[in-house]
């Protein structure tokens, strides 16, 4: 504490200058009935050294994904972030600034975010991107509310949006919370038993306000059927696609096959999984949605001398101007993490992105082959093309398999029963660019020994 308060010990001098005599005088406006009489029942203050020791002890009790073969992804990537990313983004001028309301002294972050918008726009092949959402789930949720505002007037199915059946329950729950107040009727867009979109039943969604699908799906499936979806649902329905940002190094970006809004988890670019946050969501769209978009947007402009300059723009959409009529309540976003993402994307470059995607694809394929070679283990969808994730059908409960693997020091993946009760014998295996042959071998050996155990 002593090192944080420059005026400690000088209180009297400052109070006297104002004609006050005690610190208590400053709080005279707080009525007696609600004044706290006793000190806060909290432990005593600590020094930096003591806090560091406690942090090392407590966080040291956590198991780092890097210390063991890890196949838990489920929407977050056990990525490698180049060293310069964190070092540059946490320069004090970036780290300790706030929303650039004063563009004249905020050109650095404004330009960096304008460049971020460009990097995202190029990645997903749509013309406009914002400065970030909280994560993939709120990006998807606010894409739906945005699309309903744009399409509701002309929609045949008003206040209605369809969401892919394969959107996992935690993400769907966020979407429900964000759409309930707007009175949006959420319906389920069916997929076939093989996990691919059922274009026949998708005709039910024609004329609604928005359709939300994911490419790849939460089960890692790359679905060619999605490229026909826009034709099925029609011009007056927004096609919203959630992406794995890394996959776009080899997979055609949704902007090129009809998507009107693209969202996704930006985390693989810029920051480690960090226990689930802070991470950032990307949000890009075609011009039609621009004025109903959530979030901050940076525009290019000029200063009075004609120098190139950047500034926040379209602020009339936002809560600090429009209050209850704002397009979103978002104020603080994830700018710093988006900056980390921008630096990471910039260093990758186009071919670096492609290489990264190929590495993940190669890991996916290699892991898939190693596991399906085990008798008794099948792919949930054997014909599918997967990226990063794939689902296995096991000869027993996935929780048992994961416990067995855990005992061997392998983090095996996700029990799909935790998402969908009917899939308790299925496991979601996730890989990344760092998955090694040794990791795969350890997983395969562990699975094989578990399968043998179930047959014994």
């Amino acid at each position: 504490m002593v090192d944080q308060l420059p005026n400690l010990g000088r209180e009297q001098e400052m109070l006297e200058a104002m004609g006050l005599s005690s610190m208590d005088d400053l709080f005279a406006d707080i009525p007696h009935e609600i004044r706290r009489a006793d000190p806060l029942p909290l432990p005593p203050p600590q020094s930096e050294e003591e806090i560091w020791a406690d942090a090392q002890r407590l966080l040291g009790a956590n198991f780092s994904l890097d210390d063991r073969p890890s196949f838990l992804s489920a929407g977050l990537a056990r990525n490698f972030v180049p060293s310069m990313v964190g070092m540059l983004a946490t320069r004090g001028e970036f780290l300790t600034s706030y929303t650039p309301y004063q563009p004249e002294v905020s050109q650095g972050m404004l330009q960096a975010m304008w460049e971020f918008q460009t990097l995202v726009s190029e990645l997903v092949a749509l013309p406009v991107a914002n400065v970030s959402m909280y994560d993939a789930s709120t990006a998807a949720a606010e894409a739906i509310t945005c699309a309903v505002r744009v399409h509701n007037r002309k929609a045949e199915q008003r206040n209605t949006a369809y969401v892919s059946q394969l959107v996992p329950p935690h993400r769907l729950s966020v979407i429900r919370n964000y759409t309930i107040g707007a009175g949006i009727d959420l319906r389920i867009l069916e997929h076939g038993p093989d996990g691919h979109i059922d274009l026949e039943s998708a005709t039910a969604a024609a004329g609604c306000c928005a359709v939300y699908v994911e490419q790849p799906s939460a089960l890692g499936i790359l679905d060619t059927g999605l490229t026909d979806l826009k034709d099925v649902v029609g011009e007056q329905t927004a096609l919203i696609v959630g992406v794995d940002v890394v996959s776009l190094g080899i997979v055609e970006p949704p902007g090129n096959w009809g998507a009107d809004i693209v969202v996704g988890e930006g985390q693989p670019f810029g920051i480690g999984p960090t226990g689930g946050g802070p991470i950032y969501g990307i949000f890009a769209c075609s011009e039609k949605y621009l004025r109903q978009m959530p979030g901050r947007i940076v525009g290019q402009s000029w200063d009075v001398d004609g120098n190139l300059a950047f500034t926040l723009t379209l602020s009339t959409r936002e809560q600090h101007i429009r209050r209850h009529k704002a397009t979103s309540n978002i104020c603080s976003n994830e700018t710093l993490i988006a900056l980390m993402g921008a630096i990471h994307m910039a260093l990758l470059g186009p071919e670096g992105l492609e290489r990264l995607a190929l590495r993940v694809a190669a890991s996916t394929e290699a892991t898939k082959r190693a596991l399906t070679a085990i008798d008794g283990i099948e792919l949930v969808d054997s014909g599918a093309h997967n990226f990063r994730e794939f689902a296995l059908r096991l000869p027993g409960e996935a929780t048992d398999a994961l416990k067995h693997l855990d005992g061997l020091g392998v983090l095996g993946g996700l029990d799909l029963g935790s998402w969908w009760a009917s899939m308790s014998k299925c496991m979601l295996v996730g890989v990344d660019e760092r998955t090694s042959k040794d990791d795969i071998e350890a997983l395969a050996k562990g699975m094989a020994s578990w399968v043998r155990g179930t047959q014994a």
Partner: protein
Amino acid sequence: MSDLFSFNGAEGAGWSQPEPMLGDDAAGPTVPEGLVRSRLPEWPRASEPELVRHYTWLSNRNFGIDTGFYPLGSCTMKHNPRLNERIVQLPGIDRIHPLQPEHQIQGLLAIFYEMQEMLATCSGMDVVTLQPVAGAQGEFAAIRCIQEFHHANGEDHRDKVIVPDSAHGTNPASASMCGYEIIEIPSADDGRLDLDALRAAVGEDTAAMMITNPSTLGLFEIEILEATRIVHDSGGQMYYDGANFNAIIGKTDPGRMGFDAVHYNLHKTFAQPHGGGGPGSGPIGVKGHLAQFLPSPIASRRESLDDDPRGVGDGHWYYWRDVGESSIGKVQQWHGNAGAVVRAWAFYRRYGSDLERMSEHAVLNSNYLRYVIMNPGPKTSKAIHAMPVEGAPADLVMHEFTLSLSPLKELNGVTGKDVAKRLLDYGYMSPTLYFPQIVPECLMIEPTETESKEVLDRFAADFHAILSEDPETITTAPHTTPVKRVDEVWAARNLVLRHPGRLTDSN
């Protein structure tokens, strides 16, 4: 000018990576025909030295707390201790997944639990969740809980949320996103809550009132107990916007004031860096009757048992508690901004039971700065064209205060915005401008506890110097910043929202 998209090195320039494990060909078939990317994105091709220089150049064109005094009212721009940045680099937070089994994340759960308990203690609430990732999301989550509470009581007809006209814009925006109609009540002449207006606004349709205390004018709402009584009598719930929590810790709390739900801004009160706009963290706390509606899950603990795996060594086993069927579910798909929670934990540990000192110094600095600004010496007074007036008349303020520059505008046309821009020339971030909207030509100033008396004295002196300057100098400011006044209208009319692309395209 350094332009990211002008870096156009050879193909493959940039980050060096290992080969894909099976060679590039093997991965080919994993993308089905018809989905293979036809053209790579037009990203720059740049080496590490070029990019380090680019982002360093950009950082030099940006102003943070580290650069200078940042009195941005309502945002609590306090110093961000660097230890916290070091801690979040530890693999035990950077390299963990929120869905790892509980025995692998005992340390994270223990920190979450400690933070939940600390926030509950400081706010007088019963149960806290750390899931919301920003103040606005905390508001949204808590109002959703209140909505479900009324629903469970068969009171869906409660469809209105009351906010004072001095409220943060996020309050009405968050309630509106939940589907509520907003009733905005005017402040009284002294800037404080108008109880008569509140009495006129409440009724059987009242779902909740959202209010911050101290208010955005920096005033403590003296009649807050009566306000909570009026709202509760109507059957409504009281929501505390914790944006100004930095002013009151250890002195009073929203529980004592009668609130039912509250959000905390860990990026304000607990020094999570603001990062150019985020990340934040916006935990919420509630009284017992709302606990069953909170987002799920919440960190919990029990006594360790003999056959538990190794924990953190404090005799407890930590676990995620599912809130149950009445929970609103999730507002962020994981457990919130865990990295921000860990930083805030490290910050809180510095103060512990002395958090009260933090609030005392925040209020001391605010009152002191207001006093020195409003009481210039005779010589300075004489030189000043027109003194600002208080945004609201009061003997005391809390952690922030407002000034109206209307007298200067009336005298010579110099606006609040002009003065704000001129402050940039003197090496300060501008205070919050034109908010709250009820104060004309408003500057809202929050110095925080981490500024020294010397900084406050110098700022006041420089502020006086500006008020004494030739109007032309002020209206054409800033003069010394990386760019001069930016044309925001041009930006909004032309909407150039991305770089046009590489100047020379080698694709």
